[in-house]
């Protein structure tokens, strides 16, 4: 028998957790955006629209926002292109111990993300692996400027995000009924044509989900640009950090946080709505 009270009781713990640790903090942040900044570290509860006015009129912030979205988008797309092949390989291989290949994807997570990011300094830096090797070989006279560039930031983000993309694509590949491919082949498709007709379209939901995930994580990243980028390569997350920790301007920091939260949230919502992800899922008979 269906008892609505039981259902509420079952979701109550999660619901309380979400309310107290997610919704409430966001609500507090939202309230902070209307506080008045007095001086570093001091704000008053006088309601003002000054923070929002500043954000909406100052091109400095808009530049950061656009740049963040651009870097996030580029990272996601490169991730998609680079991630599809390993995912396809793991799916298609006849190697008996597939779990080992999947484990290899997860192994990097055993090392702290910060340390993994730091490791790039030893690879890309002036005294790093690449520069030293090229100098020793006499291919270059001056060390190349690779670290503290946007390229280094994207590289670091790729390193961090690729496993997410690969796993997402792999899962959607794994859900494809392989007899569909046999069916396509029996009706006259070569392997390549069967891939285009069946495998690729049916793996798109995974690719789309991976793109969204990578985009949001990249656009919201803070550690990677902090360690691998110069001041010019800072992203919106670094701007928030600087506003709150450097300038001690909490109302403005809260405003910027809410902006990033809303922008990425809107992206996710619009994306799922119009990239017809749900449509594809429906098509799969799910």
């Amino acid at each position, binding site marked *: 028998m269906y008892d609505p009270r039981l259902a509420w009781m079952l979701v109550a713990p999660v619901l309380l957790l979400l309310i107290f640790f997610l919704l409430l903090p966001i609500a507090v942040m939202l309230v902070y955006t209307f506080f008045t900044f007095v001086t570093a570290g001091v704000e008053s509860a006088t309601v003002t629209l000054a923070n929002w006015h500043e954000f909406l009129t100052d091109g400095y912030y808009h530049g950061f926002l656009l740049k963040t979205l651009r870097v996030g988008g580029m990272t996601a797309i490169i991730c998609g292109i680079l991630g599809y092949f390993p995912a396809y390989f793991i799916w298609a291989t006849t190697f008996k111990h597939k779990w080992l290949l999947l484990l290899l994807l997860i192994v990097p997570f055993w090392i702290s993300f910060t340390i993994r990011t730091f490791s790039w300094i030893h690879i890309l830096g002036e005294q790093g692996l690449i520069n030293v090797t090229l100098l020793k070989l006499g291919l270059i006279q001056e060390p190349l400027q690779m670290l503290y560039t946007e390229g280094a930031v994207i590289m670091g983000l790729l390193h961090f995000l690729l496993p997410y993309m690969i796993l997402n694509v792999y899962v959607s590949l794994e859900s494809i*009924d392989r*007899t*569909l491919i*046999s*069916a*396509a*082949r*029996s*009706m*006259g*498709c*070569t392997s390549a*044509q069967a891939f285009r*007709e*069946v495998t690729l*379209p*049916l793996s798109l939901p995974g690719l789309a989900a991976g793109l969204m995930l990578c985009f949001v994580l990249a656009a919201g990243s803070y550690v990677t640009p902090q360690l691998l980028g110069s001041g010019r390569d800072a992203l919106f997350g670094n701007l928030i950090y600087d506003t709150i920790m450097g300038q001690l301007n909490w109302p403005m920091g809260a405003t910027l946080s809410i902006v990033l939260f809303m922008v990425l949230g809107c992206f996710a919502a619009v994306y799922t709505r119009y990239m017809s992800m749900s449509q*594809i899922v*429906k*098509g*799969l*008979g799910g």
Partner: protein
Amino acid sequence: MPDTAVSPVITSRSESTGTSQANAGTGYERPAVEFRNIDIAYGKFVAVRDFSLAIPRGSFVTLLGPSGCGKTTILRSIAGLVDISRGQISIGGRRVDDIPIYKRNIGLVFQSYALFPHKSVFDNVAFGLKYRNVPKPEITRRVGKALEMVRLPGSEKKLPSQLSGGQQQRIALARAIVFEPEVLLLDEPLSALDANMREEMRVEIKKIQKETGITAIFVTHDQEEALSMSDQIVVMNAGMMEQIGTPEEVYETPRTSFVADFLGKANLLAGSVTASDGQNATVALKAGQRVSVVSPRPLSTGTDITIVLRPQKVQVGAGIENRLSGRVISASYLGGNVIYEIDIGEQTVIRANSQLVGKMIPEGEAIEIGFDPAGCVLLDETGSRVS
């Protein structure tokens, strides 16, 4: 022996290449599909051993057997989905060993339907035509015709997920026949359907096969499906062919105890010959009784023998031949018929499916049964039919 493990038609051995179109109508045309001594192995496991078969054009042949008997493997080998390790397969007289799957021109219907979930019914059915460079208006016409044939006209725009299981399987059938393949392969196409739908689809598939005259190879573990649909049944066991014949042949005259048991749960009564002439033999059953049976040849006294007796051939009541008395251990009422399980002693249980006349005999009661001496088949000690 009318039903040995060789081709049911005389096949021409000429190795002429060229057109794969055999002239239909003549009795000596090339078989639609021919296997010559094929072996199929998965690593060390040999799934099919020394299998030879010629399938006449336009016939409906069923590969019947329990799971793991190699029937699906054989079907997949025609499609090119598994490689054969020995022998050769020809489709329409053309050797296909080295021809990749997409050039074999076969229609495949899977148990799981295998419709493309992201494509409309039209795109699904048109798929094979598209890869045969059929012009667009012609595709539209032929898809429409195929959908009419499976009684789902006007469903072009729907997605497979909007159809029921039976409808999906009919679309899969339309998709497999629309490009007029050389042979239609059906891999347990009815297994995923519920009982009512299964019977309807059985009739439908058979009807469409007759109408189009396509050669069909059907794989199933369901003896009822095999008996009701096939021109020829190939009974498989453990990678080998046990018997080939018309449904009537394999049912009425099973060649081995496996075939007898697999098709329709026959009673296998063990005994030994006590007397025999050219036509009849007297057999002492393990259970103690003596029965008389028609024997195709004289049997030496003392030979161990198994009598294969169909439940339908067991008669209930007095005044019949080969009288056996026993006790009913179970009685299932099926409307017009009753299925009795009867203990005739020494742990020998006979299944009888008889027309209900008068009252049903309840469990635990004594019962008299018997059978016509000509209504059974004899198997020798190796399990092969006495002939």
